[in-house]
């Protein structure tokens, strides 16, 4: 453990005559010396100079050691405020719907949907259907994912919040619902070389989840339109987002 303490023999020879080797201190004297409580005049032979060094090393703080205080203090206090009291362990928050988190989740989903909408629109295949999905109505009972993109965050369930909080990734729209149509078209638009890229996208994962597996997406999308997927919702199109309960 103390390898760096072992000096080669020839180095010890160079350290000087043996006679000048100071004695090893007893514990009490060492403690007093280190604490700066040993007067150099009372120090054992050879240790007076060490006591002076201790005094220098433990001198009151110099101005240069305290420069930068305002900036450092402001920075660290801000870090503590943003980090500690509100960053309780996730488990404690489970089941507590947080408006902020739901809004964040909704925003993440909206961003994901808009991005795939953008990709699809760029291919010139679809224009409308993918975007309205972002704002559309209720999912089936028990699904309750904030990732349906509802803007009425207050109605989001606790489970949804926990899920978002837990894995920190957006889930994308519920592709079993009205979003199916747009997602399928977007996916199909990417077929032929490109769509492998998309397999990691939030929207594709939503589609795969609805289809029951990534390899079943093609079959799933064959069975259009979305309404035929048996979700049994009233037709959502044309209704203003966020109005429904």
């Amino acid at each position, binding site marked *: 453990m*103390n390898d760096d303490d072992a000096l080669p023999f020839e180095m010890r020879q160079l350290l000087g005559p043996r006679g000048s080797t100071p004695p090893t201190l007893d514990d009490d004297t*060492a403690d007093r010396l280190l604490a700066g409580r040993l007067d150099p005049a009372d120090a054992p032979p050879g240790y007076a100079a*060490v006591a002076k*060094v201790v005094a220098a090393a433990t001198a009151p703080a110099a101005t240069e050691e305290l420069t930068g205080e305002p900036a450092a203090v402001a920075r660290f206090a801000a870090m503590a405020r943003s980090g500690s009291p509100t960053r309780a362990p996730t488990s404690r928050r489970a089941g507590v719907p947080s408006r902020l988190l739901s809004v964040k989740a909704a925003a993440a989903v909206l961003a994901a949907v808009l991005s795939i909408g953008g990709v699809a629109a760029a291919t010139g295949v679809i224009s409308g259907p993918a975007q309205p999905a972002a704002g559309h109505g209720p999912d089936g009972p028990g699904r309750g994912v904030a990732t349906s993109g509802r803007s009425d965050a207050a109605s989001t369930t606790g489970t949804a919040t926990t899920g978002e909080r837990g894995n920190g990734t957006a889930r994308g729209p519920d592709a079993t619902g009205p979003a199916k149509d747009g997602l399928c078209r977007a996916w199909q638009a990417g077929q032929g070389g490109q769509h492998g890229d998309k397999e990691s996208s939030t929207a594709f994962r939503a589609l795969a989840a609805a289809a029951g597996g990534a390899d079943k997406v093609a079959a799933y999308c064959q069975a259009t339109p979305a309404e035929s997927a048996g979700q049994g919702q009233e037709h959502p199109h044309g209704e203003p987002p966020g109005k429904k309960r």
Partner: protein
Amino acid sequence: MIGPSFPAVLAAAQRGDEWAFAELWRELQPAVLRYLRVAAPDAAEDLAADTWVSVIRTLARFRGDELGFRALVFTAARHRALDWRRQSSRRQAAALPVELLNNRPAPDDPADAALEAQSTRAALALIAELPRSQAEVVALRMVAGLDVAQVARIVGKRPGAVRTLTHRGLRRLAQRLAAVEPARRVTP
């Protein structure tokens, strides 16, 4: 030491109150800086800032008294120094400085400056010349003001080993300074 008001200061710091951080920083920053001037001389300032960052990461969960808090801070400082040294392994070669071998103080010898000018920086530079494990425990005990048990926990050694290293370090310092003293008498 902050003393009896420490629990209130800690609680306020955990809430993110700036005045409390100012108290903690003023109390500990100089000692952290001095410890790091021994443990990682070339990067002391940066590593002191890094030390505070990692202390703040664990601050909310900290429960303990002022000594415990000091131990937390110096544990963080030591980790920062170890990380830094791992990244600059070149430094390991310099465990035994040349001045130690030829008994003649160089013009800017820290030993000379520590004795003559009572310079804090020179004193720390002198301690930094000790073999690393000795320098570490001497600095933690002397500059950080921690006791043997705390230092033992921080460096992961038994208290007896910490005492031994401390004694060796102090004796080596005495030897080193003895080599300077006669020289100072001849050259005023």
